[in-house]
C-alpha cells in the first residue's frame, strides 16, 4: 500500500510536471538540431512521434569524426505528452479544492489537457494532400504528399473507369493480390520505395541487356530501376518503382515496370485481357471528390514597381452535382475554403502564374485547438480578473 501511495505521489507531483516540461524543452532542442540533417519529417518521426529519440553527435560538427559515436536518448513526444496529460489531470484532482476562486485554474488545466489530446488526435487523423489546377482547368481529385498506390484501371466502360487501388504501404507485408473486379492476380515482384530509372543507353542499339519488365514502357524505353536510400530530408521525396507481374488463369500476362517517375506526361500502360482494356500505374495516392474545383483565375499581386509578392489568390468555381451547388470562391492567404470536411489552403503556384496548388487538409479535430485556447483564455481572464477585483476592493477599503 505504501508503494502504491508512493507511486501516486510521484505521478501527481508538480515536480514531475516541471521535469516533463524540461524534457519537452530538451525534445524541441534536440529535434530542432537534428532537423537540419534529417528534415522536418525525419525529426517529427524520430523525436515527436516516438517514445524515445536518439540524438547522435553530428559528423559535420567540430570533432565530428571522433564524437559521432555519442548518442543521447531523448524522451519522445509519445512519452512526454501522455505523461503530461496524466500528471496534470491527477495533480489537479489531488491538489484541487472546489471553490469559485479557482474556477479559472480548472479552465486553464482543462484547456491545456484538451490541447495535448487534440494534438494526438491531429497527429493520428489529419490527412494532407495537394490539388493542382491550371487556369481554365478543373480537378476532382487530390493527391497525397507522400503516399503512393498501385492502380489497375478498367478502361472498358465508355463513361466510367473502375479503379482498383492498392496502397504501396501493403507491399512490405504482402506481395500477391486478388480482387473480385479483376480477372487476374497481381504479384509485386520487386518494390523500390525510392528509386531512379536508368535507361540502357550505352549497351548498344539492339540492347542485349534484358530489362526486368517484359511489357509496357519498361521494355519500350529499356528502363531499369535502381534503388535509392529512403529519404525524409527537406526538399526530397521518395519516388517509388515496382515490377508487377499479372497472372491470369492461363499463366503470366507479363511483367510491367510501374513508377511514380512515369507521371502524366507518359503514355498510359494499357493492355487487353478477357475482352477488357486495363491500365496499370503507380502514382501518388489519389482521393476523388464528389465535386469539381475549377481555377478561374490565379492572381499574384506584387507591390507596385517591385517584384516583391504582396498577395496570391485563386478564384475558383466549386460545382457539386449532388447538391446542385455552383459558386465562386476566392482562396487566398489565411482565407481557405472549408467545404465538406476539407480545408483548401492557397499553397503554391507555378512560376508563370498559370497554375495553382491548393493544400487540402482533412482534420476532424480542427476545432479542438480553438476550443482549448478559448478555455485557457477564459480561465486566465477569470483568474486574473478575480484577483484584480479583489485587489481593487482591498485598496478601496
Amino acid at each position, binding site marked *: 500500500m505504501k508503494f502504491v501511495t508512493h507511486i501516486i505521489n510521484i505521478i501527481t507531483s508538480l515536480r514531475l510536471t516541471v521535469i516533463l516540461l524540461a524534457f519537452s524543452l530538451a525534445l524541441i532542442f534536440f529535434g530542432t538540431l537534428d532537423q*537540419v540533417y534529417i528534415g522536418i519529417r525525419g525529426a517529427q518521426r524520430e523525436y515527436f512521434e516516438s517514445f524515445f529519440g536518439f540524438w547522435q553527435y553530428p559528423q559535420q560538427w567540430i570533432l565530428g*569524426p571522433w564524437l559521432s559515436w555519442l548518442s543521447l536518448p531523448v524522451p519522445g513526444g509519445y512519452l512526454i505528452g501522455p505523461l503530461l496529460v496524466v500528471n496534470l489531470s491527477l495533480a489537479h484532482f489531488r491538489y484541487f479544492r472546489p471553490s469559485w476562486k479557482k474556477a479559472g485554474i480548472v479552465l486553464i488545466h482543462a484547456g491545456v489537457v484538451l490541447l495535448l489530446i487534440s494534438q494526438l488526435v491531429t497527429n*493520428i487523423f489529419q490527412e494532407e494532400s*495537394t490539388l493542382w489546377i491550371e487556369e481554365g482547368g478543373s480537378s*476532382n*481529385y487530390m493527391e497525397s504528399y507522400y503516399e503512393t498506390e498501385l492502380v489497375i484501371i478498367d478502361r472498358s*466502360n465508355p*463513361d*466510367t*473507369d*473502375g*479503379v*482498383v*487501388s*492498392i*496502397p504501396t504501404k*501493403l507491399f512490405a507485408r504482402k506481395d500477391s*493480390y486478388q*480482387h473480385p*473486379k479483376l480477372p487476374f492476380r497481381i504479384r509485386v515482384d520487386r518494390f523500390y520505395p525510392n528509386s*531512379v*530509372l*536508368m*535507361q*540502357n*543507353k*550505352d*549497351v548498344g542499339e539492339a540492347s542485349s*541487356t534484358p530489362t*526486368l519488365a517484359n511489357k509496357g514502357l519498361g521494355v519500350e*524505353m529499356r528502363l*531499369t*530501376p*535502381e*534503388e*535509392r536510400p529512403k*529519404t525524409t530530408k*527537406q*526538399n*526530397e*521525396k521518395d519516388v517509388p518503382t515496382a515490377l508487377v507481374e499479372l497472372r491470369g488463369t492461363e499463366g503470366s500476362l507479363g511483367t510491367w515496370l510501374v513508377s511514380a*517517375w*512515369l*507521371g*502524366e*506526361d*507518359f*503514355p498510359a500502360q494499357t493492355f487487353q485481357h478477357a475482352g477488357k482494356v486495363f491500365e496499370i500505374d503507380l502514382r501518388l495516392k489519389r482521393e*476523388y471528390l464528389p465535386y469539381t474545383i475549377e481555377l478561374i483565375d490565379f492572381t499574384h499581386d506584387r507591390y507596385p514597381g517591385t*517584384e516583391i*509578392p504582396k498577395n496570391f489568390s485563386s478564384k475558383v468555381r466549386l460545382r457539386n452535382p449532388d447538391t446542385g451547388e455552383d459558386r465562386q470562391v476566392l482562396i487566398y492567404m489565411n482565407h481557405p475554403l472549408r467545404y465538406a470536411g476539407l480545408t483548401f489552403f492557397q*499553397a*503554391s*503556384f*507555378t*512560376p508563370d502564374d*498559370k*497554375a495553382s*496548388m491548393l*493544400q487540402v487538409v482533412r482534420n476532424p479535430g480542427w476545432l479542438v485547438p480553438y476550443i482549448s485556447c478559448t478555455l485557457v483564455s477564459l480561465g486566465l481572464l477569470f483568474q486574473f480578473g478575480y484577483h484584480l477585483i479583489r485587489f481593487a476592493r482591498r485598496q478601496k477599503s
Partner: protein
Amino acid sequence: MNRNSVIPFALLAFCALTACSKNEIQYYEIPKETRNVPTRADGLPPGHPPTTGLSPGITWKTPEGWEEGEPQGAVKGSFHIHRKDRPHAEMVVLDFPPHAVQIEDFANLLSDELKIASDHRPTGTEAFEKFTAGEKEFTLIRLTSETPLKGEDYKTSVLAAVLKEPSRIWFFNLKGAEPTVLAESDNFFEFLKSIEIDQDPHAGLGDGMAMAMQSLPEEAVSQEGNPQWTVPEKWEPGRPSQMRRGSFQVMGENNQMADIAVTTFPGDVGGMLANINRWRGQVGLGPITAGMTGGVIKEMVINGKQCQYVDLVGMDPPTGKIFPQRSLVGTFSHEGNSWFFKMSGDSDLVETQKQNFMDFLNSVRF
C-alpha cells in the same frame, strides 16, 4: 460493467479506427479520364535525373579500421582511414561509362593533383603494373608528390587501381600521406581481392555518375522561398511538376528540346567537384580532379551574388564526335542552400538558347 474494463475496449476501437481505414485495397468508379502524351525529348520522366547507362552492382569487404562513408555524387564508395600516430588517408571508388577515360588520363589527372612535373609522369602502357585477383586484372597507378603539398607535413601518395569491365570502368583510389598509403597498401590489395561485381545490371546500387540528384519536390510553401527571375520569351512553362522550383522547356527544329530546371538543395550537395563530375557524366564526359575545376568553372557576380557557371559540351567517347547533349549550369549559394539553374538538351538548341539562358541567369535575384 466495471469502469476499468471499458478502457481496453476503447483503446481497441481507437486502434481499429486509426489502423484499418486507409491501408486497404479499394475499388471505386470515376468519370472517364484521359492521359497526356510524352513531352520530354529524352523520354525520361520530368524531374528525373538524366542517366548515362546501367551500372552493375559492386560489393567489397571493408578492411579493419576503414570507416565507410556515404556514396556521394560520382563517388560510389568512400572510406576514411584513421590510424593512431599516422596522418589521415582516404579511399574512393568511382565508376564511369566505358571509354569515358583511359588509364593514362587517370594518371595525368592524379599527377596534376600531386603537382608532378610532366617529364616525371608515367606514360605508355608499360609504365603501369598489373595486379590480378581471380579473373580480374587491375592496372595500378603509383604516384608520390615530389615535395609535401601546401599545408601538408608529408609527401602525398596515391595508390590507384583501374578495372576495365565491358560496361564500366572502375577506379579505386587510395590517397593520403606517403607513410599512411604505404602502410595501407596491403589492406588496399585485400580490398581489391574482395571486390565482387554483379554483372546483372539490375542488381546495381546506382550509377555514380548519374547519382540521384533528386529534384526538389515543391512542398506546400516552396514558392515562397524562390528567388525572382525573368523567363525569356519562347520558353514554355514545364508541367506544373512538384519536383522542381522552376521548370521550363524550349523547343527547336526537328523536335529538339532543351529542359530548364531550377532546383535547390541544402548544403553544397557534395561539393562543386562532385556536381561537375556528375554533370559531365550526364553528357558523356569523364571526370576531372579538384585541380582542374579552375579551368571549368567561370566565376561571375550576378546582382551582387557569386555565381559559378559551367558549360559542358558532351562528347561521344568512342568516336570523339560531339555528343548531342549539352548542359549549362549556374550555381548560387544562398542562406546555406545551393541553387542550380540548369539548361540541358540537344547541343545545337542549347547553343542557340545560350544567350537566353545567360539573360535568365542574370535576372536571378535572391
